[in-house]
């Protein structure tokens, strides 16, 4: 909205003041995320910009904290960096193990949440679905109920059922937490879904399975994928439940970060943070592309 020509001087002043205020709020939103990036290259173990860093002196920067991510927990971190060094890092480095766990747990919980969630969303979007409102409320509730309560409940339940301290336990828990996101995104895609397409397919003799895979699936796919990404990020970022129900075998990246922050926030934490921010930028881009694609496919908006 451009400034109207009939605007009074006060309005003009406000017009600019308003944009300055908004700019400040954007700075507030984004600066904490950007600030960790340069600091993670700090040569000193502090969280402030040293004089060398401010003058862009290369001596003030180093990748030692990224290196520490590799070497921390290794059996022989100081050896020459040959094949056996990398094998040692792959097998023993604490952050690498945490990353492996995060990926394994994230992958399986995402698959579980996405498959169950998509199928259920198909059912929920049908007008004939009985008790739709209450069921929807139950399925979304893992997103609303405070994590500490979920974690407490799972701690007792898993101790009792023998699922505690197992990968399956964590995968199930994370799948439950990811499900609301899948439901929300897939149902949102289905709202704009033109049901005459499936009827036409049925009319032309396609079986329900064929209709689903040839017609429905391609159209809702963007929603499914962005739901899956949300589910993955939920698992990838989750720490409270892991704190309560996982043993040291299932340490994930956030769990390892939590340890690090509680013990001592070394810049190594900041280097992990930087990597995570880059990952989230990639994910965000993917979701954004998907969203636009979906809108284009459904002809909803011209962007």
């Amino acid at each position, binding site marked *: 909205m451009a400034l109207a020509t009939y605007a009074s001087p006060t309005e003009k002043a406000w017009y600019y003041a308003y944009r300055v205020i908004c700019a400040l709020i954007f700075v507030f939103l984004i600066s904490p995320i950007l600030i960790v990036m340069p600091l993670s290259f700090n040569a000193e173990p502090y969280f402030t910009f040293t004089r060398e860093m401010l003058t862009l002196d290369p001596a003030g920067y180093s990748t030692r904290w990224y290196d520490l991510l590799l070497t921390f927990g290794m059996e022989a971190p100081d050896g020459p960096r040959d094949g056996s060094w990398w094998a040692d890092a792959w097998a023993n480095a604490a952050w690498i193990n945490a990353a492996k766990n995060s990926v394994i747990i994230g992958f399986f919980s995402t698959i579980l949440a996405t498959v169950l969630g998509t199928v259920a969303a198909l059912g929920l979007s049908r007008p004939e679905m009985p008790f739709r409102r209450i069921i929807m409320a139950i399925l979304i509730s893992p997103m609303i109920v405070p994590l500490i309560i979920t974690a407490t409940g799972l701690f007792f339940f898993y101790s*009792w059922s023998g699922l*505690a301290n197992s990968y*399956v336990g964590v995968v199930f828990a994370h799948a439950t937490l990811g499900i609301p996101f899948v439901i929300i995104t897939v149902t949102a895609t289905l709202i704009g879904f033109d049901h005459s397409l499936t009827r036409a397919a049925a009319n032309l003799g396609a079986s329900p399975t064929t209709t689903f895979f040839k017609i429905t699936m391609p159209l809702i796919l963007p929603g499914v994928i962005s739901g899956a990404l949300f589910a993955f990020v939920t698992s990838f970022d989750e720490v409270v439940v892991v704190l309560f129900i996982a043993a040291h075998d299932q340490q994930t990246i956030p769990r390892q970060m939590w340890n690090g922050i509680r013990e001592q926030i070394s810049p190594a934490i900041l280097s992990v943070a930087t990597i995570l921010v880059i990952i989230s930028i990639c994910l965000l881009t993917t979701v954004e592309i998907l969203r636009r694609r979906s809108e284009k496919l459904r002809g909803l908006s011209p962007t």
Partner: protein
Amino acid sequence: MKTKFYLATTAMVTGLMAASVASAQEVTVMSWGGAYTKSQVEAYHKPFTAMTGISVNSVDASNPATPIKAQVEAGNVTVDVADVEFSDAIRLCDEGLLVELDHSMLPAAPDGTPAADDFIEGALQDCAVANIVWSTVFAYNTETNANAPDSIDDFFNLADFPGNRGLRKNAKANLEMALMADGVPASEVYDLLETDEGVDRAFAKLDTIKDSVVWWESGAQPPQLLADGEVVMSTAYNGRIFNAAVGEGQPFEIVWDGQVMDFDLFVIPQGAPNMEEAKKFIAFATDTQRLADQASWISYGPARKSSGELVGLYSDGVTQMGPHMPTAAANLENALVNNFEFWADRDTELNERFNAWLAQ
């Protein structure tokens, strides 16, 4: 239902776990993290794995006594050996949460003295074997303190020594230090704490600095808080300060006045998954040489008399460990030995009071 549920999932568990857990023989040891765990990894874990082939998983906690109690009570124990404070070892043993240990499994000293005589008094308990003597002291950052504090009174003296204080988020040692700072001689501290007036007096003393306290939970935090300038002085485990000061060159100084000494002991929780390996580990880690080795990584005193003479230099190769030990004569002038019976009985109640006080 329970078994079925378990069986149904076991297959999936195994499938998933195959990827990351393989080792047949292992033992999981829970300790206090940071420099202390590092000293144990160097002195105990690595040689143990080298000798027996049993791999050691090291797990950290801010106080291992609570997670193992929770694990045993919930019935899912993952830890085989835990390193706990004296009063906690007694308390958990009384509650039947720990495995009783046969002291004859412990090796004799090199000169043949049986373990029972070689360990210092109190170091061998029904369910626990001590490995170190450590102490809670207070330390300050020489760069952020204009004057050097030299007594426990100074810790509570905000007027002459302004700035934030770091204290462990726990009643133990804080109450004792508060009373000593309030002028109570070390020998009378526990008699006074047995009375309600004594407890009130300790809390009243803590009240005087409450608004300036940053509370810490894990032992690695105090050196960090001191280095970051978040606090000007902090209580701490003496070895952590030593490692930060001598090992990393931080400008920290320990004030030994009013130190509270304690044991750390190895225990095995009931239901530990690798019971035999756990016992082997404890026997190995508490032999004369290992305890002496440990003292070259951090300034905690070994729990065996025979280890004492083997303690020499810090791992930097120049620092004599002797004067940095809590038990060095110069450090004992106004020292208190933690009364484990008092805390075994009163831990729950006093911490409850402490938390209510904290929340107000």
